[in-house]
C-alpha cells in the first residue's frame, strides 16, 4: 500500500519530501531558539557535577590537613572555608558609611548642625566597630594571622588575580616553602603540570568545590570563630635566619641617628672591598641607580668627588661623608644638584641603618674608596 501510495506517484513523493524538509527546518529552528536556555542549564549542571567530583578529590587528598569541613587543621594547614580566604570584610558597611560622612564633614557647604549630627554618628560607628572587633577577637586568638581590619587574604598577599586563579595556581604548584612554617608539613605540588598527581581538570573541579564554600555577604561571626587555623603570614622566608645586629632597629627615623657615634664605631671595622662590591651591585642593588647620572651620581669617581669636593663643603672626613650619605640620604645636598630636601632624592631609601650591620657598612665604604677615577669637569 505504501508502495502504491507514495512510491509510484511522483506528486506524493514530492509532497512527502517537501514536508520532511519543512519539518526539519521547523525542528532545527525550535532547537535553535531554545539553545540559550539549554546552554545555561548545561553550564549549571556541569558546575554542579564538577563540584561533586571536586568534593570527592578533596576528601581523598586534602581533608587530612585542611579538615573535612575545610576549617583548617591546627598547626597543619589553614582554613579554606573561611571569611578570610574569600575576603569578607565584617566592617565594610561601617567603613563605607564612615568615609562618606567624613567627606561630607569636610565639605564647606555642610552646616554646623549637620556636623554635630555627623560627629554623633561617627562616634556610634566607632562603638559599633569596637563591638564587632570584640566579637571577632576570639577568632583572632586562633593560631595563624587574622586581622579583621585587613580582611582580604589576597590583598595581604599582594595577589592581583582572581581568587579562582589563586586557588588553581596554588593547587598546581603547592607551597614549596611551607615546610618551614607548617611544622614539617608541606603543601606539595598537586598539578601534573608541576610534577604532581592530578590533572588540570581535576584541579579545576577542586577549585570549584573550594569556591562553593563562599557565602558571599552571609558570612557570620560564628564562621570566623569556627576556624581552627588561620594562614600564617610569612614575611620573607628566604631571609629568615638568626636575628641580625643592624646599626639601628627597624623603624628608626634617620634624622634621629647619632651619626657621630656611628662614625666612631665604623672606624673599628676593617672593610672588605670585595664584599662591599657584592653588596653594592647585588644584595642592596645600589648600582641599579648609581649608573646613570640623570638618576643618581654615578659610581665611578665617587671617592674622587668626595675627597676633592664634598667633604670640604660639609667639613666632614670623606668616610664620614659617605656614612652620612648612606644612612641619612637627605642630609646634605651638593651645590648645583637640583635636589630639594625631603622630596626628590628620597628615591634613595632612608632605611639603610636598619638593613646594614657595621661590618657591611665598612665593606661598602671600602668598596667606594676604590672608585677613585678621574672625574671630568669636577
Amino acid at each position, binding site marked *: 500500500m505504501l508502495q502504491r501510495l507514495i512510491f509510484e506517484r511522483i506528486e506524493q513523493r514530492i509532497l512527502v*519530501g517537501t514536508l520532511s524538509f519543512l519539518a526539519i527546518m521547523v525542528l532545527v529552528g525550535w532547537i535553535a531558539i531554545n539553545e540559550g536556555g539549554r546552554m545555561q542549564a548545561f553550564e549549571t549542571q556541569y558546575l554542579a557535577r564538577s563540584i561533586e567530583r571536586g568534593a570527592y578529590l578533596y576528601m581523598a587528598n586534602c581533608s587530612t590537613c585542611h579538615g573535612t569541613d575545610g576549617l583548617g587543621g591546627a598547626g597543619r594547614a589553614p582554613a579554606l572555608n573561611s571569611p578570610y580566604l574569600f575576603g569578607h570584610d565584617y566592617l565594610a558597611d561601617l567603613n563605607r558609611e564612615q568615609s562618606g560622612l567624613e567627606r561630607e564633614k569636610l565639605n564647606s557647604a555642610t552646616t554646623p548642625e549637620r556636623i554635630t549630627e555627623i560627629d554623633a554618628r561617627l562616634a556610634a560607628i566607632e562603638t559599633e566597630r569596637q563591638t564587632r572587633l570584640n566579637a571577632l577577637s576570639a577568632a583572632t586568638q586562633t593560631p595563624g594571622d587574622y586581622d579583621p581590619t585587613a580582611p582580604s587574604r589576597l590583598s595581604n598577599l599582594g595577589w592581583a588575580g582572581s581568587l579562582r586563579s589563586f586557588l588553581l595556581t596554588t593547587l598546581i604548584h603547592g607551597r614549596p616553602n611551607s615546610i618551614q612554617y607548617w611544622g614539617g608539613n608541606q603543601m606539595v605540588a598537586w598539578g601534573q603540570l608541576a610534577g604532581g598527581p592530578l590533572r588540570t*581538570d581535576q584541579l579545576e573541579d577542586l577549585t570549584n*568545590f573550594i569556591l*562553593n564554600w563562599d557565602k558571599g555577604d552571609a558570612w557570620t561571626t560564628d564562621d570566623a570563630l569556627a576556624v581552627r587555623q588561620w594562614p600564617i603570614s610569612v614575611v620573607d622566608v628566604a631571609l629568615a635566619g638568626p636575628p641580625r645586629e643592624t646599626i639601628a632597629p627597624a623603624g628608626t627615623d634617620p634624622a634621629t641617628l647619632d651619626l657621630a657615634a656611628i662614625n666612631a664605631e665604623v672606624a673599628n671595622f676593617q672593610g672588605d672591598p670585595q664584599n662591599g662590591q657584592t653588596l653594592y651591585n647585588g644584595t642592596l642593588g645600589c648600582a641599579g641607580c648609581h649608573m646613570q647620572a640623570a638618576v643618581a651620581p654615578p659610581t665611578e669617581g665617587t671617592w674622587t668627588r668626595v675627597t676633592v669636593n664634598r667633604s670640604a663643603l660639609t667639613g666632614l672626613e670623606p668616610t664620614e661623608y659617605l656614612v652620612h650619605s648612606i644612612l641619612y640620604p637627605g642630609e646634605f645636598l651638593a651645590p648645583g644638584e637640583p635636589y630639594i630636601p625631603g622630596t626628590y632624592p628620597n628615591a634613595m631609601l632612608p632605611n639603610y641603618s636598619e638593613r646594614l650591620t657595621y661590618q657591611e657598612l665598612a665593606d661598602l665604604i671600602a668598596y667606594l674608596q676604590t672608585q677613585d677615577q678621574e672625574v671630568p669637569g669636577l
Partner: protein
Amino acid sequence: MSVLPFPSFLDDVKEKGFKKAVFEGANEVVERLTAGMNIQDIREALRGEAPSRKPNPRLQPHADGFWLHMRPSYFHKSVTGIYPEFRLGWLSTYFVVFETITGIFLMVWYTPSPEVAYANMINIMASVPLGQFMRDLHRLGAEAMVLIVTLHMLRTFFTASYKKPRQFTWFTGVILLGLTLFLSFSGYLLPWDQLALWAVTIGASMVEAAPPEIVGQNLNLLLRGGPEIGANGLLRFYLLHVLAVPALLFIFTGVHYYKVVVHGHSLPPREENIGEDTAKRVPLDKRVYFIPDILTSEIMWIGVTTLILVVLCTWFFHAPLEAHADPQDTPLGTTAPWYFLWVQGALKLGDKVFWGIIFPTIALGFLAVMPYLDLTPSRRWAHRRTALTVCFLMISATTVLSYMGLAEFGVRLAGDTEILHEMMMPPAHNHMGKLLPVPFDQLTPGIYTTRQFEAEAGQESAAVAAFNQEILDNGRAQLAIAQLGVDHLELSAINTSVIPSDAEDLEKALHFFADRLVAYEHELQDAWGLVVVTEVQPGLRRLDAVIVWHQVEFENGRVVFGSDGEPVLLVGEDGQPVTRVSTDHIFIHEDAQYFAAPGS
C-alpha cells in the same frame, strides 16, 4: 547597432522586450546549470508528464553533466520499489555525506589533545549554539550508518545479488563495512571521556594480541603511539578518523558504485531465469527514468531519514559524555560499542589471540570471499538452503556473542562491590546508581537502614530503634564507623532513623538496596545496609552506602554450603564469625540534575 560595443543582454532587451529577454536569459542559465534541461523541461518532469521535445532533454544531464555522469539514466521498474533495495545503498552513501557535514562542524570546535579535548566537548555543549545538536546528529548518524550498511549487506545476501558477475562489488562492500565500523569506532576516542578511553583501550589491546607477538606489540604501539593511549594515540585516532579512513571510504565508495553501474542493479530473483543476468537489458516498457522518478524518490528518502534523525536528536537521543578520561580509574562494566559486542563476547570464551583476533579475522575474511566460494548459479531461496542456513547461523551466533559481550554476562563481582556499584555508579551506558536521581530535597541529612523494610507496616520506628540498640551492642556499629572514617567521614555514633514519609524516591532506592541484599543472601550473611546523608556545603550533600555482613567460606569463587544446606560462615581466630564492612560514597549537588534513564 549594439547598445554596448559588444553583443549583450541589453541588446536582447531592446530587441525582444524586457520580460521576454529576462525569461530567455533565465531559461538559458537553468539549462546550463542542469547541463541540458530548461525550465519547461523541469516543470514537465516534476509534473510527471512526458518530455515535450526531442531528443529527450532528461537524458542530457547524464551525458553532459558531472554530477549525474555516474548515475544510470534509467532503472528497471522492478528495482525502484521498496523491495528489493529498500534504498539501503543510497542511504549508506547519504550517511557518508551527512557524517562529513556534521563532522566538519564539530572539527571547527575540536583540538586533538588530551589537555583540551574534553574541555572542547564541554565548550561544544555549553557555549556553541546547536553544538549539542550537531554532536548528537553526528553520533546518532554514525550508529545509524553502521546499522544501514549492515542491513544493506544482509539485503544483498538475501537477494543473492553477490553472485556472478557481482562478486567484486560484494568484496568492496565488505571493505566498506569494515571501514564504516572503524570510522565509527575511531570517533569513540575523540571526546576523551571515560567511555572513549576504555572502549578504545579494549580495542587496542585486541590489536596487541595479534600473532606473532612482535607484530601485535608493534601494531599496538603504532596505533596507540605509546604503551598507553595518550597524546600521540589521540592524535593518531583523530587523523585516522578525519583523514585516512574517510579517504579510503571515498575511494572504495567510488569503486563499489562504479561496479554497481557497470553490472546494473540486480533484479529480484524471481524475474530472471536461473543463471541469467538481465539487469543491463531493460525493455523499453520497463524503464523508469532517473529524472524525474529516481531523483525525487532519492531526495524524499533523504528528507524522511534526516527528519527521523532530527526528531530522535530533539527528544530521544543525546550523545553520551562521561567523566574525563582517567587511565588510573577503570570503571566497572566497560563495554565495547554495540557493533563490537560480539567480539567482546567471543573474548569471554577463552584465548585472547584466538577469539579476539583469529576468529573475527576468519569471520570477516569469510564474508569477503563468500561470493567466490558460493558458486551455485541460482538466486532463488529454495535452491540456497545451505547458504541461508549458514547465514542464519552466523546471525544467531553474532546475537548470542553480542549478548555475552554485555557487562551483565559472565563477569561476576563480589556481592558487596556489585551492590555498591548499583547504588552509586556514575552515569554510564544509560545506567546510573539508584541514589543519584533521588531529588535533592529528599536527601535529608540522617542515617537510614535497609532493616526498616523488614519491619511490618507501622512498626518501622520500633524496628529502627531496636536496630540501633542491636548494632551498638554487637559492636557492628563501631566497625562501620571505623570504615567510614577511612573514607574521611567523621561519625561519632550510628543512630538510624525512619526514612521521612515524603522522601518517596529515597525510600525506593533503599528498598532496592534491601532487595539486592536479599538477592545476595548466601554470599552476604546477616547483611544490612546503611545510607548516611551528610551536608558538606550548602547545596552539596554526601551519601555513604555501607554494607555490613558475615563473611562466608568461598571455594573456587563459590559459596561453600554446609550439610544443613546453609552457607558456612568464616570463623576468625577468636572463634566468632568474621564481620566485614564495605563502603562507598558519592556527592550530590542540588543542581546536578541526574535523571533516571527511561525504562530503567
